[in-house]
């Protein structure tokens, strides 16, 4: 079950996206895979439709985020189009008590954890650093510092282990993060302590303008076994493969077998953020090639072929997506900016004399205008 492929030299670069585990071909044809199959054999039509629905919702939410940014309502947005399968698929496999440590791009994961409309946009609008209540959805604040959350997930997992619980921590990050020290230190700690943590690397091929070949001359999933952590390299555009791999990893963690690593090979269809211009560094042909591997179209084709989804089902999902987008838009445009003195709140849990003096000075300054 571990990634075992070895490469003798680096001259060939990393294997392409064809060298992955999958159960759905890009055209939606179901193919057997001995490793993944046992983990998804029980998926009901209802669960499969829910997966599809959440992927469509994620894409619609993402499109709304981009639109709101273009309309000046958000300062920035980090699109996740193309990565819906890995985000939604892995999140669907989680239990309520599990805790996710997302990066800034994990909109589909937050959807899976039950985030509310305002939770997606207030941070990007500049109203809050993290709008959602981490306890309500068992998700840490979105991480901007690349890979830092991998250590937090590992520490949380060490805590869960000490508590004797079966809760699992999940760290989400991209291929660029695997170059960071924190991600490597997290694997050392997770492995040494047998922490129940799952590392989900969404290898979306690009870290802003840097292709994955700048981060890795060897398959990223191939690194984990070197830390003593088993890994799977899966097709990140195959939602079923994502569910299967995550269930495999979660099961290992719950059985006390420690950390696992998943490299989900996918593609970031849009820019890194709305400030980025990907036409400067990548070919239209590459984007077109990946368009043919679209994760939503693939699952749709499969579900339709199996008679689990029809036009009316599709229309219903589209309505739900529009409703979510409208709610997000309302939450965004209706947001009220906090009073200025609240920027001094919550720097410390307990009173801090120096900061209180500054707050008082600033409040007095502001009051000077009101007289």
């Amino acid at each position, binding site marked *: 079950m571990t990634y075992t492929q070895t490469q003798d030299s680096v001259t060939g670069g990393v294997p392409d996206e064809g060298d992955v585990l999958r159960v759905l071909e890009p055209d939606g044809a179901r193919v057997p895979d001995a490793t993944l199959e046992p983990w998804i054999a029980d998926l009901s039509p209802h669960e499969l439709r829910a997966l599809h629905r959440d992927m469509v919702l994620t894409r619609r939410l993402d499109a709304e985020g981009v639109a709101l940014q273009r309309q000046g309502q958000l300062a920035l947005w980090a699109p996740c189009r193309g990565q819906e399968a890995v985000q939604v698929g892995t999140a669907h496999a989680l239990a309520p008590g599990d*805790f996710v*440590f997302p990066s800034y791009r994990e909109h589909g994961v937050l959807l899976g954890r039950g985030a509310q409309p305002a939770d997606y946009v207030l941070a990007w609008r500049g109203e*809050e*650093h*993290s709008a959602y*209540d*981490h*306890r309500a959805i068992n998700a*840490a*604040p979105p991480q901007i*510092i690349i890979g*830092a959350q*991998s*250590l*937090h*997930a*590992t*520490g*949380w*997992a*060490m*805590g*869960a282990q*000490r*508590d004797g619980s079966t809760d699992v*921590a999940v760290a989400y990050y991209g291929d660029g993060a695997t170059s960071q*020290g*924190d991600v490597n*230190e*997290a694997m*050392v*700690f997770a492995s*040494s302590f047998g922490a129940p943590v799952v590392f989900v690397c969404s290898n979306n091929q690009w870290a802003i303008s840097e292709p994955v070949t700048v981060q890795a001359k060897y398959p990223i999933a191939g690194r984990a076994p070197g830390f003593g952590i088993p890994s799977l390299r899966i097709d990140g555009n195959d939602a079923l493969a994502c569910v299967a791999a995550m269930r495999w990893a979660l099961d290992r963690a719950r059985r006390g077998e420690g950390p696992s690593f998943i490299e989900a090979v996918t593609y970031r269809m849009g820019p890194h953020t709305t400030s980025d211009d990907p036409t400067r560094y990548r070919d239209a042909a590459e984007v077109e090639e990946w368009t043919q591997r679209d994760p939503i179209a693939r699952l749709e084709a499969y579900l339709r072929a199996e008679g689990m989804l029809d036009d009316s089902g599709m229309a219903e999902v589209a309505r739900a997506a529009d409703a979510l987008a409208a709610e997000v838009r309302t939450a965004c445009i209706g947001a009220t900016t906090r009073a200025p003195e609240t920027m001094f*709140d*919550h*720097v*410390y*849990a*307990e009173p*801090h*004399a*120096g*900061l209180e*003096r500054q707050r008082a000075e600033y409040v007095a300054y502001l009051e000077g205008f009101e007289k």
Partner: protein
Amino acid sequence: MTALTLGSAINAALSKALESDDKVLLMGEDIGKLGGVFRVTDGLQQRFGAQRVIDTPLAEAGIVGTAVGLALRGYRPVVEIQFDGFVYPAFDQIVCQVAKLHYRSNGRIRMPLVIRIPWAGGVGAAEHHSESPEAYFVHTAGLRVVAASNPQDAYVMLRQAVASDDPVIFFEPKRLYHSKGEVDLDADLADAPPMHLARVAREGTDATIVTYGAQVRTALDAALAAEDDGLSLEVIDLRSLSPIDMNTVAASVRKTGRVVVTHEAAREAGVGAELVASITEQCFEYLEAPPQRVTGHDIPYPPSKLEKHHVPDLDRILFAVDRVLERGEGVLR
């Protein structure tokens, strides 16, 4: 009261913290079987087990970053950074994560984390083993920064730091680890002065010396020497560098009208710069002379054979006292 070294007082505080709250964990390199390179955690793993006193991989960002996750899960980790100069690999986790999570989460996430750092020079150590990085942390909102100068404070302040819901950078002056003092091991934390308050270590009327950590002892020695010269120097032990207890500092400066700030860290943009600026803002009309700073030089910590020229000693402090007393350039004697 029990006579304890500063190192033993810290050990006693950690032991008490582990005993009274099962959410307290110790983490660090070599802190378990070895008892730490300074033996400060001696015997604690034996007593509390490897699940409570954790020997970690040699990775400072890993130690602090996993402690963040443990805190999120409800634990109260006390981590040891083996030496001051080794804290930099963990700097990102400390200033971007530990310091900011409470703020970023609108107060929902607490970071009751203590980061213990054996600190500063004067022990003839190798490169990277004698640094004074306190200004980096004082400059970072969200962190509390404290420095103990004697066994009693080390014992009480460390227990207060563990009890605090804020992250605390806890500096331990390593050249005082073996110095002894009376410690009240049964002291009730509720009766002890809070760790954010400064302490008047010695009362005086002619000038104020403000300092912290191991320099408190040097300043007290200077005050004793100045007494022979008929001078009465007040010595303030800051104890807390963030926040700084300006009430105590200002009260002293208003009384004496003259102030010398001394620390071992480099001068530029250091704690002394902050002190002098705040004193000037708050006590300008009481000042009889320009405040003086006696600090480490703006150089990397020098090779140990030269460190006596870097770490301010009694004579350099008295030289500055002369200047604030407008008694010329000479050393008092």
